[in-house]
């Protein structure tokens, strides 16, 4: 009796399972949706990930556009951590915004996945690509087509505490050898607990410092296993061993690293221009300045940027493009960028950077590096791999050369080489 009932129950369950399986097979895995945004209601939907306070100038700018042109723009803020996932889900559901302001390095991936439109026809007619810094413009290019228009730019530079450097008797370092010596001298002199602070946390964010050091030595993310990558790992290893850097930087994100700079625990820090206001607010009495990053073989810095894109299947693509074009006018940028605390992606906006501290970042833009091509699509993974190598070296579980070689093998695999 029991056995019979169990059998019947199993049979019902199996039928339900097989029905659902066939449902699943035709529901999404096998076939697909045709994408597609709204159907052209004349309202331009605009998604971005600028939370407070960064969203305020952006939305004010969009309101100005409506005032000037009468075209309604509907902004929507989605937190950065949820942004790409929301965009992907909406793409699968065929409900994308007209304009999406995305992280520049995700442009390639979004284009390959069919989330965003090819803007080549618009961009060619517009003809302003030569006004842009090359690296920034390249992030919007996928297989020779334009998918993203740079919105703004940012890069990394060296923050330093003038009093701490003076007390330790060191000059602002201009090469990484000088940096190692300066960091150690600061820690030894007792002027601050550490010489240099940077993020080294698990994941892509923590790879910025070691990547910058690798770029300076003439290396690249795609060839991290080469001599420059090994030299970078060795350099950071020496700095933590000498006390010039805290080994706790492996647990710090960029905000943590900046906190140790603003509270005077570290004499120098590597960060982007977006931290300028944070330092001004949190340490109003500190005397500090910003210098270009130490340079060896190259003066490269790391670009951080965002691109304006149009959602696949947008019914208001023309209106969306008009908005993008308007947003990139030098006169509009000159009003917007100082409020937004960022740098222009193009070099014909002299009025956008009047602040001398921010000018240091702006001057470096011409040397900025960003992953392009296949590497752009896999940059998150490659950076995560590089951070793992850094972690292994600092914790002493691998020698720099071995860690770099292992990272290279993993990067090659990710890139499909």
């Amino acid at each position, binding site marked *: 009796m029991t056995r019979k009932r169990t059998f019947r129950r199993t049979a019902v369950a199996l039928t*339900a*399972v097989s029905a*659902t*399986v066939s*449902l*699943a*097979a035709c*529901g*999404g*895995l*096998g*076939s*697909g*949706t045709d*994408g597609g945004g709204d159907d052209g209601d004349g309202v331009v939907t605009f998604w971005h990930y600028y939370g407070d306070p960064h969203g305020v100038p952006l939305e004010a700018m969009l309101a100005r556009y409506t005032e000037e042109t009468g075209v309604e723009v509907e902004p929507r803020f989605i937190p950065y951590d949820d942004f*790409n*996932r929301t965009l*992907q889900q909406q*793409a*699968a559901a065929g409900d994308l915004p007209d304009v999406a302001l995305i992280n520049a390095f995700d442009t390639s*991936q979004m284009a*390959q*996945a*069919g*989330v965003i439109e090819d803007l080549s026809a618009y961009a060619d007619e517009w003809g302003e690509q030569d006004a842009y810094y090359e690296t920034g413009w390249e992030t919007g290019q996928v297989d020779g087509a334009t998918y993203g228009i740079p919105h703004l730019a940012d890069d990394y530079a060296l923050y330093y505490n003038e009093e701490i450097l003076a007390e330790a008797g060191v000059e602002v370092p201009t090469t990484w050898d000088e940096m190692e010596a300066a960091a150690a001298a600061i820690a030894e002199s007792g002027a601050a*607990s550490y010489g240099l602070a940077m993020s080294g*946390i*698990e*994941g*892509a964010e923590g790879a910025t410092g070691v990547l910058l050091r690798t770029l300076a030595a003439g290396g690249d993310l795609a060839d991290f296993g080469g001599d420059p990558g090994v030299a970078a790992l060795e350099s950071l290893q020496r700095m933590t061993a000498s006390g010039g850097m*805290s*080994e*706790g930087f*492996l*647990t710090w994100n960029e905000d943590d690293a900046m906190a*140790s700079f603003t509270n005077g*625990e570290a004499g120098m820090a590597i960060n982007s221009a977006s931290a300028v206001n944070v330092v001004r607010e949190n340490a109003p009495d500190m005397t500090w300045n910003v210098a270009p990053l130490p340079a060896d073989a190259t003066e490269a810095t790391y670009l951080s940027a965002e691109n304006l894109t149009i959602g696949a299947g947008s019914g208001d693509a023309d209106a969306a493009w008009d908005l993008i074009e308007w947003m990139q006018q030098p006169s509009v940028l000159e009003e917007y960028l100082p409020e937004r605390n960022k740098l222009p992606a193009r070099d014909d906006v002299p009025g956008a950077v009047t602040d001398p501290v921010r000018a240091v970042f702006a001057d470096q833009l011409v040397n900025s590096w960003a992953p392009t091509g296949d590497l752009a699509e*896999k940059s*998150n*993974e490659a950076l*995560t791999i590089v951070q*793992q190598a850094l*972690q*292994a070296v600092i*914790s002493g*579980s691998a020698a720099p050369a071995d860690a770099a070689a292992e990272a290279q093998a993993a990067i090659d695999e*990710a890139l499909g080489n």
Partner: protein
Amino acid sequence: MLPAVVFVGATVVYPLLYSVLQSFYDVGLREVIQGGAQWVGLDNYIDQFSRSRFWYSGFISIVYAASSVALTFAIGLGLALLLRRDFRGRNVMRALILVAWVLPTVVSANVWRWLLDGSYGLLNALLRALEFLEGDLFWLGQQVTAIAAVVFATAWSFAPFAMILLSAGLQGIPKGLYEAARIDGASPWQQFRFVTLPQLRPVSLAALLLIFIYTFKTFDTIFLMTAGGPGGATATLPVYAYNEAFEFSRFDTASVATTVLMIVPIALSVAYFRTLRKETAA
């Protein structure tokens, strides 16, 4: 009956099967959005099973879950025994202990992160004051201490839950058993060993299983405290699956991890219900 079937089908069965099925297809971001995923059979499993990181994630998941369960159970039992006694402020204390359970993980995990920070953390300040420590020690920056820290943080938040289950179990033990034991001259330890523990067995088994399932799938505490680091040391299967899916857009191999993640608790639950049935029959 039908609404229930539809509800369960739409919210549990369908997503579950979809996820399992996804592990047999080649699914990247493009396929999720545009469809057209290719059936690849067991390729994703073969690929994942040949990776040491995958096995490490499985191993560390079990280490993390087993240690968390043991510690949670021990603390929960201690608290339950303590609160069984009648003393002033018992209810206040019980309520306070429950705060750990109701506190959102995003709050507790960040508090732990700050407490354990190597340079300004409260724990190190305390250790320095007691002269156990000189300089900095980064608990979340070293593999063994990072694992211990996430286990401790997990046990801290789950212990009140264990306490409630075990308190209920303790209340169900007939007082007469203790009286009989005392008359036979049993010491407090003997009473605990030969009356309390055997009587608590059914509740304990249920509690252990529930806590294991909860901890085995825990993502938030670990992700917020260490993001799976340092060097992947605390990358349990949920963290591994998250990275595969949402960092690297490999939804297929992420599904391999989530399928394995699902099989372990299901197998344990089946074993549990078997034992239960046997015991009820006996």
